């Protein structure tokens, strides 16, 4: 399956066509181009490096197997991102089935205290260095339930519309809207270092 042809100058469309003909070298070039983004998406959803690596690898294997189903309706990058998102969602669902959701998470689902949090009037991230901001956002994302984090990731990072998120997650648009709202409010509070205890 080795192919020594130089693919670095070819565009994604040409690489996809070559890969569909069985050119593994072309597919390797696609992997090299998009692997960081695919990993980043898996990491943002799973919050675990090893799982993110495994799931992104699985996404690449699946994309090779399903390459003939890709007809260019979207960019290749978008297509492979959807594959890794679906794999992450499947994994999160399996994990959720294995574990009883905590009362806190159920509370969060129905609104919890996030709706009543005081509005953060200043921009808490305004003067933060990029590395510090990234650290804070990572920490805040980690504290969200996977449903809230997923909605936020799909909307903010993947620019998906409510309808598309609902379809991807298998829930109603109303649920997407409320999850997104609570996720944003909780993020705002966490980024401002507000804790729910402050409300009491």
């Amino acid at each position: 399956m080795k192919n020594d042809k130089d693919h670095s100058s070819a565009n994604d469309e040409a690489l996809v066509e070559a890969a569909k003909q069985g050119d593994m070298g072309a597919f390797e070039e696609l992997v090299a181009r998009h692997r960081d983004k695919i990993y980043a998406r898996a990491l943002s959803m799973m919050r675990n490096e090893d799982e993110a690596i495994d799931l992104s690898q699985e996404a690449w294997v699946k994309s090779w197997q399903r390459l003939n189903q890709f007809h260019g309706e979207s960019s290749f990058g978008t297509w492979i991102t959807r594959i890794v998102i679906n794999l992450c969602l499947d994994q999160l669902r399996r994990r959720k089935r294995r574990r009883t959701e905590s009362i806190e998470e159920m509370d969060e689902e129905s609104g919890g205290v996030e709706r009543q949090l005081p509005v953060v009037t200043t921009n808490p991230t305004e003067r933060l260095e990029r590395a510090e901001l990234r650290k804070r956002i990572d920490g805040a994302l980690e504290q969200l339930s996977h449903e809230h984090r997923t909605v936020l990731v799909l909307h903010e990072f993947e620019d998906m519309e409510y309808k598309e998120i609902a379809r991807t997650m298998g829930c109603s648009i109303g649920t997407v809207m409320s999850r997104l709202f609570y996720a944003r409010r909780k993020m705002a509070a966490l980024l401002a270092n507000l804790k729910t205890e402050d409300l009491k």
Partner: protein
Amino acid sequence: MMNQEAQLKLQAYLDGELPAGERAAVEAWLACDAEAQLLLAELQNTGRALDGHGADVKLPETREFFWSKIEREIERQEQPEPVISRHQPVSVFWWLRQWVPFSGVAALVVLLMILVVHPGQSNAGQFGEMEIAADSMGADVFRDQEQKMTMVWFYDRSGDSQFTESSPLATVNHQ
């Protein structure tokens, strides 16, 4: 305090998901409601903070190593799996394993009947000891002299046999 419907409407306005007809109404509301303005600003700030987050994340594996894992997995999955035919001929060993217990039992029953039907040729109606060839099988014998009847129970010691009936397998009336 703003109700949930109003909050979600404000968010939909921010995300451009509100029908054109409703946008004007939200803008009019925003113009005169300080609480709504603050909430909108907070939602916008959160969005800005997240903007571009994760763009600098790098897969912590080299190009060659990551690709080698993918390539190996693709090759592994493309290997044809051994086909197990539904009509595969059953091995002789399988048949032997199935029929050995039955034939053992049948042989014992036949032997027993010969001894009972022709007691003179045996040890005058005394059964003496009988050996059972299969280790997994046991037998109990009950003999009623008055009724001139012998009952033999065969049972499976391993517990996975089909001989689970509690009734005797053979009942022999003495002549």
